[in-house]
């Protein structure tokens, strides 16, 4: 067997141009597929990581309070039970953010726009300054109570400049109409389609507008030491919290026909009857479940391309090896006469093809890795519209090793199928036939 493997390997170099051509076709196919896999691999992580930065957390806790009238207020008044449970869980929390938010209408000189305004404690959330790059204005101006930062897009729609005063119409937590006034402190670069919707104000002023007291807020965000800890930590914290506070059930999906777990949670909350204060725990993954669908779609695309490319390449392999078989018919006869069994002849052809496929696949993966590292050197900048897909403004790739190995195995298997018939024919020849045909 070792001898036959050795001969199979050497046979590959006999028709160098033919082997190189076929090997390159395989390498090219593998490279394309690997690039897609690599992009999909990093896509989910990048999107989630970027979102957790924008949303200021990987795990979120929000409070709901039932009023006497049956009305629900979104508020966390006392978070000591929450922080205690977080601490007790041992989750790798880098920092905790406390935010309130509302959706309201911003008005400036007759122009109106509906947007979401996040109230953040900027003294504590220092990282926000690094994440959100300002095109105009400065973070220092945020010390003013009514200061506001808008995205480029929204600022343009309102036609406002730094220093302008903007009117806001919104509702308090109890549903009463309220009006306030912001001063534009800065205009941020658009961080992709989602970043456009982000406007930031001081927590204290947002609380005031919402009718909350200082020290109260709506959502606690836990920024972890990396996305990968999210689900484990979330379960731990949830388990800990369930002993001290009332909680909404986690992750019940689609009962109400909602598309995302987040929506499902919102609907579920309306339906259930309960009293007092209840907390909800959700994670960035639940919010971004659609990202997983995109990743699945990318991977499916890669698989389809893999199959289509390789069906084409397989036809090439089958034809080539049919030719190879006829060229070597005399050798087959000789080897059979000298004592090589039928299986040996078959293995020799199969091995030759598999070596070619493996060589091509490995080269393809290496080429893809090289291409990935070159592409990821390009700096698209933090203000690129595709920011949300990237890591610090660079396209990044992650090739799951199992996926690479899987691709190699798929190719090896398809190649075996492709040469099965020529190899079978070679093995079937009687030695006399083979020896005679060669003359």
């Amino acid at each position, binding site marked *: 067997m070792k*001898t036959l493997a050795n001969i199979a390997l050497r*046979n590959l170099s006999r028709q160098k141009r033919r082997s190189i051509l076929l090997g390159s076709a395989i390498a090219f196919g593998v490279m394309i597929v690997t690039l897609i896999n690599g992009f999909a691999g990093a896509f989910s992580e990048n999107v989630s990581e970027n979102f957790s930065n924008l949303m200021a957390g990987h795990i979120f806790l929000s409070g709901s309070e039932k009023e006497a009238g049956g009305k629900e207020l979104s508020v966390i008044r006392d978070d000591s039970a929450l922080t205690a449970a977080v601490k007790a869980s041992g989750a790798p929390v880098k920092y905790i953010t406390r935010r309130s938010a509302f959706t309201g209408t911003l008005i400036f000189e007759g122009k109106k726009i509906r947007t979401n305004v996040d109230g953040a404690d900027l003294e504590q959330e220092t990282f926000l300054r690094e994440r959100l790059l300002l095109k105009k204005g400065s973070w220092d101006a945020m010390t003013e109570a009514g200061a506001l930062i808008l995205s480029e897009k929204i600022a343009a729609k309102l036609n406002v400049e730094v220093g302008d005063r903007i009117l806001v119409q919104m509702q308090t937590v109890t549903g009463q109409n309220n009006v306030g006034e912001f001063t534009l402190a800065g205009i941020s670069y658009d961080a992709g389609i989602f970043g456009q919707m982000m406007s930031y104000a001081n927590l204290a002023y947002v609380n005031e507008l919402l009718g909350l007291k200082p020290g109260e807020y709506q959502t606690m965000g836990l920024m972890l030491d990396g996305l990968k800890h999210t689900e484990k930590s979330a379960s731990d914290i949830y388990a800990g919290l369930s002993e001290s506070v009332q909680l909404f059930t986690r992750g019940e999906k689609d009962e109400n026909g909602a598309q995302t777990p987040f929506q499902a949670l919102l609907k579920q909350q309306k339906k259930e009857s309960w009293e007092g204060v209840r907390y909800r725990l959700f994670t960035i993954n639940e919010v971004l479940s659609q990202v997983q669908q995109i990743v699945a779609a990318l991977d499916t695309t890669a698989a389809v391309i893999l199959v289509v490319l390789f069906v084409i390449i397989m036809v090439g392999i089958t034809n080539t090896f049919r030719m190879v078989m006829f060229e070597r018919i005399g050798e087959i006869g000789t080897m059979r006469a*000298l*004592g090589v*069994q039928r299986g040996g002849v078959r293995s020799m052809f199969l091995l030759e093809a598999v070596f070619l496929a493996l060589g091509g696949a490995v080269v393809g993966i290496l080429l893809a890795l090289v291409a990935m590292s070159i592409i990821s050197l390009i700096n698209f900048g933090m203000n690129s519209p595709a920011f949300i897909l990237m890591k610090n403004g660079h396209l990044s790739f992650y090739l799951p090793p199992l996926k690479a190995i899987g691709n190699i195995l798929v190719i090896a298997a398809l190649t075996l199928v492709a040469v099965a018939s020529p190899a079978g024919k070679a093995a079937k020849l009687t030695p006399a036939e083979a020896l*005679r045909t*060669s003359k």
Partner: protein
Amino acid sequence: MGIVELQNVRKVYPLGKLQVEAVKGVSFCIEKGDFISIAGPSGSGKTTILNMIGLVDQPTSGEVLLDGKPTSSLKDAELTRLRHETLGFIFQSFNLIPVLNVWENIEFPLLLGKTRVGKDEKKEWIDHLIEEVGLSDWRKHKPNELSGGQRQRVAIARALVTRPQIVLADEPTANLDSATGEQILELMKKINRELETTFIFSTHDARIVDTADHIIRLRDGLVTENRRRDEDATAACASADASSGAAGA
């Protein structure tokens, strides 16, 4: 006892709608250690007969016995194993494996089958054979770097490496000039004497027939002459019958 016996062997090839009877009922007996020539013009059936003795082809009817054992009922895998264990082959067009060098070509048959030879013993034996066929300076060369005569020498060494009982050579000199052909034949004869290997070679060249101990002449698929050391040898393997009778008793 005959080492090879053909009993009324026929071989019919289908040729489109027709049938070609290449061998039309041939019987003969070959003695162990002989140097046998199967002679006859082109198309007389030499290759067909050698193929059947060499177990690379099977008779349409009749029986080929090797060392007294019938072979017609054996399966392909058993025939292959038997070829590997008892037969050596030399071909008209040398048939070396192009990707292997001289040493590797000679070694090749030793790497097949189940029996393993000790490394040192193997090396010594191959080196001895290389020396015997006069290619000591060429062991690392590939077949395409050798002359026809040299290639056939490699083939001879390869045929002998498994120490077969019988070496079959189908027109081993046909692709060589006459001087080289004579050298090859002499080499085969020398090894035949030294190792007592039975050599069966076919030729259509009347001049080289005479070196043989035993001459079987063919014409149109029939034996026209069967002479062993100037005696008639048309009788079947008498001693083989006797020994099989003795074994049965």
